[in-house]
């Protein structure tokens, strides 16, 4: 579970850092309306994707017993690889 939370934090940080650079370039160096429109689309899409990732993380947390059952190869229960 901790691995997933760490993955979420790392993915989120890298995603928003990269996203900040893209938005910065669009706003700072963009000439005309197109870069501004692209920046808006990118920002809205990024928010939506990040929200979906958060929803997925909450979903995984609620499914913890199933996930643990699947990743625990010492468990007697049938796993995805057996």
């Amino acid at each position, binding site marked *: 579970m901790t691995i997933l939370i760490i993955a979420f934090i790392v993915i989120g940080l890298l995603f928003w850092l*990269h996203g900040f650079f*893209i938005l910065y370039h669009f706003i700072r160096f963009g000439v005309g309306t197109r870069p501004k429109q692209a920046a808006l689309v*990118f920002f809205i899409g990024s928010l939506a994707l990040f929200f979906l990732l958060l929803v997925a993380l909450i979903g995984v947390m609620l499914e913890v017993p199933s996930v643990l059952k699947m990743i625990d190869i010492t468990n007697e229960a049938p796993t995805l690889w057996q």
Partner: protein
Amino acid sequence: MAIKLSVFTQSHYSFEGMRPEEEVDIFLYSHWLIPVMKFIYYALLTALPLVPLLFFAREIVEYEIISLVFFVLIAYYMLLWSIMFYEFMIYLLDTWIVTNERILDINQISFFIRTTAELDLSRVQDISVRTSGFIQTIFDFGDVEIQSAGAVNKFLFRQVAHPQMIKDKIMKLVIEAKKSAPQGTTQGAEV
């Protein structure tokens, strides 16, 4: 609110280093077919994980790992989204501007790496157009090459739409600039 939103619809072609009396006559990106081809490539990459997902659908439901698969899928889409917009950013910031005074070649290489070359219109000696291949001929795009009088490198507008029309427009501007510019005061520079 309407005034604030106008930045998305009515923003003027102003750029860094623009002179007060300067007016933008031509503003160019590469032809729209270039980003569309990339968009098709990313659309294929978006559909790619759906194949194994459909293949293992029964196992995913059986082992109740839908959310875990969803998490990995969204992380993959976030990566695609970032890369796609990075490329789109490079496309939108890689521009050519022709004003009533000069020609600017703004080249965005990557994050924080950017070159701007400029050439005074009165220094332009020759303009040539190159359209090669079936696609470029059908969609009317190609390269416009501008040769200057000095030691400044050639200016190349890569894969721009309606190259012949652009060449004619620039030639008109060059003639006007040469008429109005006093002899011996023109220069070319690279920043």
